[in-house]
């Protein structure tokens, strides 16, 4: 598998989904300029993992698991605001490394958000290309999260 490489851009059920199969430690994802759009949020499947790639207000890129860790809503339709991505189901707010920062429907003073983190893959931008550090992926349950 390692070294094998393919990139597909397809019109998929959820927005326009990019499918990439490449198990090298660093994987080339897309040209940065594809994210020069009013709402830089993009569904992406990397080696079978369903992800969402987004750029926050400060310009940082995030590559995180697609389903909200609360009850599984699809974060590709998330609200890109407050320097992160917010789930439209209950307003849970995540930063670019998938750390939950707010759960507005939880009682005041709740600390639950601190323990909520979405699986994430580090990304870097070099010479107009977005790269994912596949080898350093964090928080994925390998058995479960390879669902289609």
């Amino acid at each position, binding site marked *: 598998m390692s070294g094998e490489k393919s990139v597909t851009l397809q019109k998929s059920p959820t927005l326009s989904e990019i499918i990439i199969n490449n198990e090298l430690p660093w994987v080339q994802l897309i040209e940065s300029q594809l994210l020069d759009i009013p709402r830089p949020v993009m569904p992406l499947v990397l080696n079978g993992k369903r992800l969402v790639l987004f750029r926050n207000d400060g310009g940082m890129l995030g590559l995180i698991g697609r389903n909200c860790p609360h009850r599984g809503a699809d974060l590709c*339709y998330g609200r890109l605001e407050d320097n992160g991505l917010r789930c439209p189901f209950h307003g849970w707010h995540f930063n670019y490394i998938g750390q939950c920062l707010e759960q507005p429907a939880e009682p005041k003073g709740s600390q639950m958000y601190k323990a909520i983190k979405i699986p994430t893959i580090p990304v870097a931008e070099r010479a107009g290309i977005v790269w994912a550090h596949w080898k350093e992926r964090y928080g994925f349950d390998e058995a479960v999260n390879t669902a289609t």
Partner: protein
Amino acid sequence: MISQELNDKITRVGSGTPAGNLLRHYWQPAALVEELHASLPVAVNLLGERLALFRNDLGHWVLTARKTRSDEPIVYYPNADQIQILDDRPIYPAVEKNGVIFAYLNDSDPPDFPNFDCFRADESHVFAFKGLWECNWLQALEIGIDPAHASFLHRFLSDENAEDHYGKQFRDKVIQTNIPITHVLREYHCPEIDVEETNYGLKITALRHMNNGTTHVRITNQIFPEAICIPLSQEMTITQWHVPIDDENCYWYAMFTSFGEPINKQLMHAQRLKEHELPTYAPKKNRLNNYGYDPLEQKTQTYTGMGMDINVHDQWAVEGMGAIQDRTREHLGRSDKAIIRYRRILRKAIKALEMGDRTALPMHNNDQIKSIVGPLSNDTIALTDDWSGVSHRADLKRRAACSWDASIL
């Protein structure tokens, strides 16, 4: 988070499965009466079974298995002349209730119907419709017993004129005030939630304490095993079942019930027909067209960017979880109080059936079942330090003025 084993147990509905067995001990919506205008039999796809609905020699509605092609779509409505009834299979009873055909997919004796408002209201005061959601029934039900989500998923960034609200949810003004419900939901997004177990399921109270010393009190209900009863507007409630077609698809069946004027069924029907395809009742906005998602609208008008129809928001939320929500990765919070409580009742009922004890199931004691009335379901405004009792009094008042017998004493 729950184990995969438990998730399978509470979601899968085929014949012989624990949850499937439980649902087969309750009357299930099987078709709308409006679907029966074509010639009989009519195809019914329910609980993973491929059935046909027709009248027997006595003129009673019955269902039995039909011959199935291996490649037929899950949601499939062949013409009557293409339906071949299998005559060596069990025959199940079905009955008509205010626009909906209910079926009992079991050879044991069915329980009586409780005396809910949607069943006993005059036919002129009940309107029924259904719609397809492409996901498991349990996640479809669970969004209906989650009072907090309305403050986010259904948030309108500004308050639409409440004049055009007939037959739509969350568009009315709050009773006895000029405050649009959209405003209350948006500004008070962290309701205090109280859940109480009842003889029909759960009574769910969502309190939104407002900064003028009053509290918005919204009472909704879980009706065991797979229905909810919620307010639609000041004069109408919705009783809605989430009925499995199979493990990965379900229909919502809604009975809109009016305590005031007879329902303008033509208008209600036209509103919903505009959003659905027949004969499948599949929503025109769906996964394939991204639910009509518009990022600009999401920025300026609605929380989802998927239009003003809250059914579409709910459909997006539950279908996006996947065919069967992966509950091994969920993190329930305090806002999910009613869901947690519901699953406890569900597991208890499944366990009772595994022990062979039908009498332990909710609404299975025919001596008491006719005394199950209501349920109370409304939105009211009360003084924050004296809110209890206000919903009940408003309910009694609405019932006393009702043209059909809505008494609960």
